[in-house]
C-alpha cells in the first residue's frame, strides 16, 4: 500500500477478506483510543505509568494476523496491538494498568506489562532484549515437540544493541529454531536516535551475519507487514530456521509518560509522520477506496470504541486492589517457611499500624 492506501503491486495484495481487514482497522483504532484514554489517566494521577503505541499499530496487527493464534509471543513492551488483535479484553488491559484485583498478573508489575496464557502472550518484563534468547529456547522446545508452532519475538532497534540480541540471533541460527525475530525500528530509543544506536545498515543487515534470512519492510503498511510475517512463518515452520523482519516505523508518542520528547525532537518531525505516514490513516484510505468503510461508520465506530473504553476504564478504576497477602505468593511454586513468617509479620504489623496504610483500597 502507498500512503494513500492504494495497492502498489497487485501481485503482493494479500487479498484478505473484508471482515479480516475491518478487524485490522478496529484493532488498530481501538488500541489508539485505549492509548489516549490511559495516557490521559496517568496525567491525571489515576495510574502510575503508561506507554502508548502511536504510529506502530500496523506492526502489531499486521504481524499478529499472520500468525496462528497459538503461536507464542515474546514482546518487549510496545506490542499491545498483538494482544488487541488476539481479542484480549479491555477490562484486563486496564486491570493490569490499575493493578486491581482482576489483574491476572496479581498487581505485581508496572502498567503495560501484560501477559496472557490463553492467548499465548508471555508476560512482559522491563529489562530489554532478555526475551530474545528466551524466545529462541521456546522455539527449540516447539520444534522438538513437533508443535507446528512458530515463536515470534518483538524488540525495538535499541534493544537490538543488547548482548542478549546477539546471543539470541546466534543461538537461533546454530540451533535451527522456528522463530521470527520482529524488530520495530521506530527511530528512537527514548531520546537516542538511530544514528546514535548503530552505524551499520539497521537491524536487517545484521541477520545475514548470523546466517539468518532477513527482510526490511515498511512497518506502516499493515499489508506489507502481514505478507512478510506470513511468509516468514510458513518457512520457519517448514525449514526450522529463524527469520528476521525489520519493520521501519516511527514512534509518534513519547517513550512513556515519564518522557517529554519535545526535549529531543521537533514537533514538525512528529507531525510529519502523524499526518503523512500513519498506519491507521493508510488503512482507512484503503478501506474507503474499496467501499468497505465510510464516514458514517467511522463516526459510529469512534463513538462506540470510545464508549467501550470509557466503560472498562471506569470499572477498572472502581475495583479494589488485590489482597496484600498476594505480595508474598508465587516467589516459588510453594511458599518457603521463612517467607510465610514474613507474611505473618506484615499481618501483625498491619493490625497495629494499619491506619497508616491504604488498606481501604485493597481487597480484604
Amino acid at each position, binding site marked *: 500500500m502507498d500512503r494513500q492506501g492504494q495497492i502498489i503491486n497487485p501481485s503482493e495484495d494479500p487479498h484478505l477478506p473484508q471482515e479480516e481487514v475491518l478487524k485490522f482497522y478496529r484493532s488498530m483504532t481501538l488500541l489508539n483510543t485505549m492509548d489516549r484514554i490511559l495516557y490521559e489517566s496517568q496525567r491525571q494521577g489515576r495510574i502510575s505509568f503508561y506507554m502508548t503505541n502511536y504510529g506502530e499499530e500496523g506492526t502489531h496487527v499486521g504481524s499478529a494476523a499472520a500468525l496462528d493464534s497459538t503461536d*507464542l509471543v*515474546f514482546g518487549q513492551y510496545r506490542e499491545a496491538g498483538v494482544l488487541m488483535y488476539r481479542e484480549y479484553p479491555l477490562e484486563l488491559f486496564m486491570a493490569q494498568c490499575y493493578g486491581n484485583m482482576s*489483574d*491476572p*498478573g*496479581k*498487581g*505485581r*508489575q508496572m502498567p503495560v*506489562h501484560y*501477559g*496472557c*496464557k490463553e492467548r499465548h502472550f*508471555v*508476560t512482559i*518484563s522491563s*529489562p530489554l532484549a*532478555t526475551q*530474545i*534468547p*528466551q*524466545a*529462541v*529456547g*521456546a*522455539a*527449540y*522446545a*516447539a520444534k*522438538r*515437540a513437533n508443535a507446528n508452532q512458530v515463536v515470534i519475538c518483538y524488540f525495538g532497534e535499541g534493544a537490538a544493541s543488547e*548482548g*542478549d540480541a*546477539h*546471543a*539470541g540471533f*546466534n*543461538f537461533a541460527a*546454530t*540451533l535451527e529454531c522456528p522463530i521470527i525475530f520482529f524488530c520495530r525500528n521506530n527511530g528512537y530509543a527514548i531520546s537516542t536516535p538511530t544514528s546514535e544506536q548503530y552505524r551499520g545498515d539497521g537491524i536487517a543487515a545484521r541477520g545475514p551475519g548470523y546466517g539468518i534470512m532477513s527482510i526490511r519492510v515498511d512497518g506502516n503498511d499493515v499489508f506489507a507487514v502481514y505478507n512478510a510475517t506470513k511468509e516468514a512463518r510458513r518457512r520457519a515452520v517448514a525449514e526450522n530456521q529463524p527469520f528476521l523482519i525489520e519493520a521501519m516505523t516511527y514512534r509518534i508518542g513519547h517513550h512513556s509518560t515519564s518522557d517529554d520528547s519535545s526535549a529531543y525532537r521537533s514537533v514538525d518531525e512528529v507531525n510529519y509522520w502523524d499526518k503523512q505516514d500513519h498506519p491507521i490513516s493508510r488503512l482507512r484510505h484503503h478501506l474507503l477506496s474499496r467501499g468497505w468503510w465510510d464516514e458514517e461508520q467511522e463516526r459510529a465506530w469512534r463513538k462506540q470504541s470510545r464508549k467501550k473504553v470509557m466503560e472498562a476504564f471506569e470499572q477498572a478504576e472502581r475495583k479494589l486492589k488485590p489482597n496484600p497477602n498476594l505480595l508474598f*505468593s*508465587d*516467589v*516459588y*511454586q*510453594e511458599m*518457603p*517457611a*521463612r*517467607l510465610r513468617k514474613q507474611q505473618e509479620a506484615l499481618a501483625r504489623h498491619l493490625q497495629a499500624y494499619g491506619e497508616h496504610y491504604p488498606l481501604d483500597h485493597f481487597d480484604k
Partner: protein
Amino acid sequence: MNLFQAVTSALDNSLATDPTAVIFGEDVAFGGVFRCTVGLRDKYGKDRVFNTPLCEQGIVGFGIGIAVAGATAIAEIQFADYIFPAFDQIVNEAAKYRYRSGDLFNCGRLTIRAPWGCVGHGALYHSQCPEAFFAHCPGIKVVIPRSPFQAKGLLLSCIQDKNPCIFFEPKILYRAAVEQVPVEPYNIPLSQAEVLQEGSDVTLVAWGTQVHVIREVASMAREKLGVSCEVIDLRTIIPWDVDTVCKSVVKTGRLLISHEAPLTGGFASEISSTVQEECFLNLEAPISRVCGYDTPFPHIFEPFYIPDKWKCYDALRKMINY
C-alpha cells in the same frame, strides 16, 4: 561412582524418564570438560544433548525459554566463575518469572549446573564460589552437594523441582570423591540441612568441599580438646534450613561457619545474623566465620588463602575458651 559419574547418572535418569529433557551448554556434546555428560549424546540423540555457542547469557536465556515452553532444561555453565554474564537472566528473569506474571508463566523446569570451588591451581577464574551473589535473589534455589551420593540425589531434586535451580558441583571432588551410588534414581530433599554427626559443644556448618574440612576439624577437636562437635552440611543455600541450624545452636551454644568464598558478604553472614536473632540467649560465644580472605582467589597463594582445618581448628579453640 565418583562425583562426575554421579552427575552423569542423574542426567541419564532424567533424560530416560522425561522425554522433554535436554542438556546444553559449551562442550557438552563430546562429554564436557569435566566428563559429566559422557555418553549422553550417543544415547539420547543430538537434539537432546547439544553444544551451544560460547555465550552464557544465551545459554541461560535459552534455557529459560525452553522451560517456559514446558520442557525440562538442564543448562551447563562451564565454570561458576563464568556465570556472571548470565546474572541478569538469572536474577531479573528466571527468579522473577512466576512472581511477575502472577503465576501465568514460570521457568521452574530450568536447572543450571556449574563446576564450583577451589581446585588447587584454579586461581581467580577457575576457583570461585559465587553462591552469595545468588543467595540475595528470591525465586531461585541454590544447591551444593558434598559427595557423589549427595550430588545425584540433590541434582535429581533440582531437575524435578518446580522452581529454577542452580546446582554448583565442587570440581575438586569430581574425581577424588568416590562412593557407592545407586544407578536408579533417588531424591534428596532440597532446603534440608543434614546433621552428619551429633555433638554437644559446638555446631559446625559448611557446604560442598568444606564439609570434609569441618568433619576433620571435629575429629581434631575431639582428640585434642575433648570437645564434641555437631557437624552440619547445609546443602541448600536458599531457601536455607534455618530450623536445623538453630536447633543445633540452641543445644550447643556455639556456632562456626566456614566457606571458601570471601568473608565479607559471604553466606556465613546471613547464617550468623539469623542465628544471633533466633538464638541470642543461647550463645556462649560470638559466632565464628572462617572464610576466604577479601581478595580475588589467588594462584600461587592458594594454600594460604583457603579456610583450612588449622584455621578452623584455631577459631574453634578460641570459641571454646571465650
